[in-house]
């Protein structure tokens, strides 16, 4: 009796594995695909080498005036020289540590909220939300505890962009949640008021809102009462943004199954407690990615304050590029501003995707 011995498996044919096979499947699977691949390579060849030589290889990195920019490429000296203005605007140079400290406090204060093993998130978060704004305002604005007063007209640069965006979203969130609840209310008068409010702000561009808050707000208020420019812009931004937040939150409220509402009522919970303890915690969890997305939109929209003459990052760049000492630096300035905005927005959109993935726990089958 003979036993059959299997021969060892043959390796797959060479053209089925490795980089060649991959390229065949993904780049050259048909004549049309080959054409497209060649077109793509042509595009890259057209764009990337000039871009690299302008931004890196032929760029000017050291110096202190425009005269030092002798090479063909970008003049990054301009950005280096004006970096302080782009970050802090006209905030007095000696006091800029206060802005830095505010940012560091935010990072240190918010960090535990992102650590999943940290146990007392709710208490810490609530405390942070109460204490931090007071600290931040005192540090940035001054006027108390021996800190010199820095008027908001001196605020500017990336710092102002961040202030408008964070205050805007922090103010818009509670207002937006109330509006969303009002829109889903059974009481017709409240529903009508909320729907009108939301649809009005969503129907007009932010620019007209800013125009309105800078020209019309002073007319609306009793005589002698005067707001500073930044506060007026902030009010406009908060009202505008709350309408968008309201629509996002409404989406979350609608996604909660009716059984949850009924269960809460069956437990004998009243309206506010059933909303606060049962519905909103679930609904808000669902819409966190949506809220991050509205925040990204708001962050991009802060650049519009240029129209009413506030010196945010974009306006600082625009001003610096108009400086006769640095003529022709518009491209470098805008590329730098675009890079800063891009890093923030792209980072946040990635974070929102990550959250969506992480929070995707229930309700879906």
């Amino acid at each position, binding site marked *: 009796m003979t036993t059959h011995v299997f021969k060892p498996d043959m390796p797959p044919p060479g053209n089925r594995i490795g980089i060649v096979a991959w390229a065949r499947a993904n780049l050259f699977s048909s004549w049309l695909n080959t054409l497209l691949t060649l077109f793509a390579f042509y595009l890259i060849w057209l764009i990337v080498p000039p871009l690299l030589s302008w931004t890196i290889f032929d760029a000017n990195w050291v110096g202190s005036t425009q005269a030092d920019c002798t090479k063909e490429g970008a003049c990054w000296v301009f950005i280096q020289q004006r970096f302080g203005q782009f970050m802090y605007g006209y905030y007095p140079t000696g006091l800029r540590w206060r802005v830095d400290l505010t940012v560091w406090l935010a990072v240190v204060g918010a960090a535990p909220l992102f650590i999943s093993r940290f146990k007392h998130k709710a208490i810490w978060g609530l405390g942070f939300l109460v204490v931090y704004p007071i600290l931040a305002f005192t540090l940035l604005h001054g006027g108390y505890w021996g800190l010199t007063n820095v008027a908001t007209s001196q605020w500017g640069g990336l710092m102002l962009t961040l202030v408008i965006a964070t205050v805007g979203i922090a103010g818009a969130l509670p207002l937006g949640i109330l509006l969303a609840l009002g829109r889903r209310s059974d009481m017709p008068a409240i529903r009508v008021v909320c729907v009108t409010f939301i649809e009005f702000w969503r129907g*007009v561009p932010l*620019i007209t809102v800013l125009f309105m808050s800078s020209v019309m707000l*002073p*007319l609306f208020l009793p005589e002698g009462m005067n707001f500073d420019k930044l506060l007026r812009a902030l009010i406009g931004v908060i009202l505008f943004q709350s309408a968008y937040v309201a629509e996002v939150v409404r989406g979350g409220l609608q996604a909660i199954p009716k059984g949850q509402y009924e269960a809460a009522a069956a437990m004998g919970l009243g309206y506010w407690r059933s909303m606060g303890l049962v519905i909103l915690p679930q609904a808000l969890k669902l819409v966190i990615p949506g809220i991050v997305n509205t925040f990204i939109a708001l962050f991009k929209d802060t650049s519009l304050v240029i129209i009413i003459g506030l010196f945010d990052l974009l306006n600082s760049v625009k001003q610096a590029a108009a400086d006769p000492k640095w003529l022709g630096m518009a491209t470098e300035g805008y590329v730098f501003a675009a890079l800063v905005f891009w890093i923030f927005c792209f980072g946040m959109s990635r974070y929102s995707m990550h959250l969506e993935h992480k929070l995707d726990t229930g309700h879906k089958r």
Partner: protein
Amino acid sequence: MQIKVGAPKPRFSLGDPRVRAWLFQLITVALVVFMGWYLFNNTQTNLQHRGITSGFDFLERSAGFGIAQHLIDYTESDSYARVFLIGLLNTLLVSVIGIVLATVLGFIIGVARLSSNWMISKLATVYVEIFRNIPPLLQILFWYFAVFLTMPGPRNSHNFADTFYMSSRGLNMPAAVGTEAFWPFVGSVVLALVAVVLMVRRANKRFEETGVPFHKFWVGLALMLVIPGLSIVLFGTPVHWEMPELKGFNFVGGWVLIPELLALTIALTVYTAAFIAEIVRSGIKSVSHGQTEAARSLGLRPGPTLRKVIIPQALRVIIPPLTSQYLNLVKNSSLAAGIGYPEMVSLFAGTVLNQTGQAIEVIAITMSVYLAISISISLLMNWYNTRIALIER
């Protein structure tokens, strides 16, 4: 033993939800009315103290300033009402051009992202991730200040085949001037369109009755070519081209697209296309592969599968967010205020407001225009949604 059935006799108490609901609503309405009255009252006193007369009389007054681009005739002595009309037309011009271009570019990039070709799909992804994360205003300023204003002057302009000239003053191109054959040509195009519609109706009816298909596309194309072609043969060419010529320091004749318009359209197109691409991609992906397989198993060939099964279902997902992107583009066209392109906001809420000081009236008019546009688009959208909504069991 007796059991009481039914609700107890209603009594007025704060514990009754219905009573509380009424109370809440009364308070809300009272608050809103009070706020309105308070603001109105303040405004009245403020206006009186500043000596501003309210009202829309200012619209009749002569404007007295020049405008860089106007689609209808305008002189400096024309009224503010005409300035408003010019601003509105310029807003609509940018919006329409932007919507058309962004849709085309967005669909191309959205389909490219789904391509099986690795390079193409990665390039499309890079495009989307770069351009949707940069503020539109920044993109507009970039195109305007860093690209178009740094172009050479008219004398050294980039010359494309002696017909198009690109300079810091904008893009000069030949203008189409209508000849006497223009109106007959327009008439023939209308005639051809009517003929095509009638042909398609008859063909569809015959197809439903007998099942015999008809070459609608080719016959339609032939109609569209032959009827206007006949008009050209009979009446001559409908337009002649007026070439731009360099005289002195600038171009004379032809049409010119001012750099503000170019910067605004390019930036809005590039920005909005990134969002449209994402909408198109998710729309196409939302149609499950089973639909394709089902269509194929019914014997439909790939062409009809795409046209009759995939695209209608994808459009149902694509169109609602697409309209909201169109609305965003219209609203973003107001960013022209940053570079001074004469549209609604920069012309009317900017220049006219500064000259007349009629802040409330001007802002109210501007806002109502945008509100009117967005409300009409969302009404259209609701109508469309109810029309195409799936009728479920």
